[in-house]
């Protein structure tokens, strides 16, 4: 049945800027304004802003909030303090990945989870089903908008103090109160700014006035792929596990959480397949679902604006997964050569 697409508080501004709007995870979102490649370069060279208000926000609170999250998330919350954030996985009983998310420790017994838009409802149900007496999970997504301001000059353009990655603080931008998170999905410096939905328009206008370039989901995808950040639904799914996906670093197997035992077993015997980043050596744009010769598959692919070549992520048999291995992708019937590389696919040279 057709379902009405949701709109973020910035919808009218996107349309006024000439954005091309597309359906994404049940939302009507800007895929590009001027063009994906120009927007991508703006983020690599200066600063860009993305409306990511479609993402979900949950608050988890109560004396047993930590216990609930420790039992359902793969990373170890004891490793962060109030004011710090952590990348983590919501896992199922098979060790599969229900979602990847960032958890923010607001207070010793209060957390904010920012989850993928497409997983908002199933994640919420999952956490509700696992709720303990003394832990309250609330979906607060509709109260907030989220802007990602990313790029080497993002912090400077917002006149924010320097801060370490994966920290956050209450603050204000142009007099608008917000939560400023030093996180992102582009491989660049920058922040993600959580703001009350009613203030989103004023914040967006202020950010643009500071010379930050509006960027759509198209550039968000090319940027995250150059940085080798997996996309849930493409590269990681409930049927793929963290060990195969190269996300063992955020699974603390010394603690107990859903699927931990299965992950220990996968780790012990070694995953059969591994998710690898690759760069094409022949002209071709790899795409999701293309077979990789020898029993693998592309899970994300695009054209890298910085390398001016096809790049992607895909699962290959472990024997073929080491950096520098050649791989051959079936591009609509044409075999095209690529090579496994190390993460990230692209990283800006820091100025000396």
């Amino acid at each position, binding site marked *: 049945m057709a379902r009405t697409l949701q709109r973020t508080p910035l919808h009218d501004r996107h349309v006024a800027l000439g954005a091309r709007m597309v359906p994404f995870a049940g939302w009507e979102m800007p*895929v*590009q304004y001027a*063009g*994906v*490649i120009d927007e991508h370069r703006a983020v690599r060279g200066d600063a860009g802003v993305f409306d990511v208000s479609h993402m979900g926000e949950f608050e988890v609170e109560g004396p047993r909030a930590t216990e609930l999250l420790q039992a359902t998330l793969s990373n170890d919350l004891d490793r962060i303090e109030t004011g710090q954030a952590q990348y983590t996985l919501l896992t199922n009983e098979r060790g599969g990945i229900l979602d990847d998310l960032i958890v923010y420790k607001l207070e010793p017994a209060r957390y904010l989870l920012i989850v993928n838009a497409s997983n908002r409802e199933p994640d919420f149900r999952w956490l509700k089903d696992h709720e303990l007496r003394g832990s309250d999970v609330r979906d607060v997504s509709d109260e907030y908008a989220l802007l990602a301001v990313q790029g080497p000059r993002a912090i400077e353009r917002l006149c924010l103090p320097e801060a370490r990655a994966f920290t956050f603080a209450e603050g204000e931008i142009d007099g608008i109160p917000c939560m400023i998170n030093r996180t992102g999905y582009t491989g660049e410096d920058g922040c993600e700014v959580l703001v009350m939905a009613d203030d989103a328009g004023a914040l967006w206008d202020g950010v643009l006035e500071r010379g930050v370039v509006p960027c759509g989901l*198209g550039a968000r995808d*090319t940027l995250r792929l150059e940085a080798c950040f997996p996309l849930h639904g493409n590269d990681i799914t409930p049927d793929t596990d963290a060990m195969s996906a190269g996300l063992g670093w955020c699974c603390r197997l010394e603690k107990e959480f859903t699927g931990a035992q299965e992950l220990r077993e996968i780790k012990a015997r070694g995953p059969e397949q591994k998710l690898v980043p690759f760069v094409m050596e022949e*002209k*071709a*744009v790899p*795409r999701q679902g293309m077979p990789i010769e020898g029993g693998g598959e592309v899970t994300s692919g*695009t*054209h890298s*604006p910085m390398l001016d070549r*096809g790049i992607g992520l895909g699962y290959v048999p472990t024997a073929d997964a080491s950096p520098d291995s050649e791989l051959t992708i079936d591009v*609509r019937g*044409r075999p095209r050569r690529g090579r496994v590389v190390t993460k990230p696919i692209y990283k800006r040279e820091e100025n000396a």
Partner: protein
Amino acid sequence: MAATESYPDDLKYHREHDWARIEGDEAVLGITWFAQDALGELVHYEAPEQGANVTKDAPYGEVESVKAVSDVIAPLSGEVIEVNAKVVDAPETVNEDPYGEGWLIRIRLSDSSERDALLDVDAYKQVVAES
């Protein structure tokens, strides 16, 4: 810089958003402004081999943007006598100049009667208006 919308009246059009500039028993083929705009900035042109035969209404190549790939449909049949190497090297040329520097192939026509089935500019503009 992307070109502004235009549909030259000296060209013949195919409803799959392809154009032909007929020159005697040869024709130069490309995609229209509408097609390149719908795709966005092109990053790859999968061209046919020189000497290959293309068939009216059938795909002869592919153009790709960051987000999408599209077949390129031949508006006329014939033998490929030239491929635009500039577009192979710099596919964005199509966005900048879809009817000039951004042409895709030149063919020797195999059936001169086929041209009668193509659209003139007014008929093609009608197709665009309905798209």
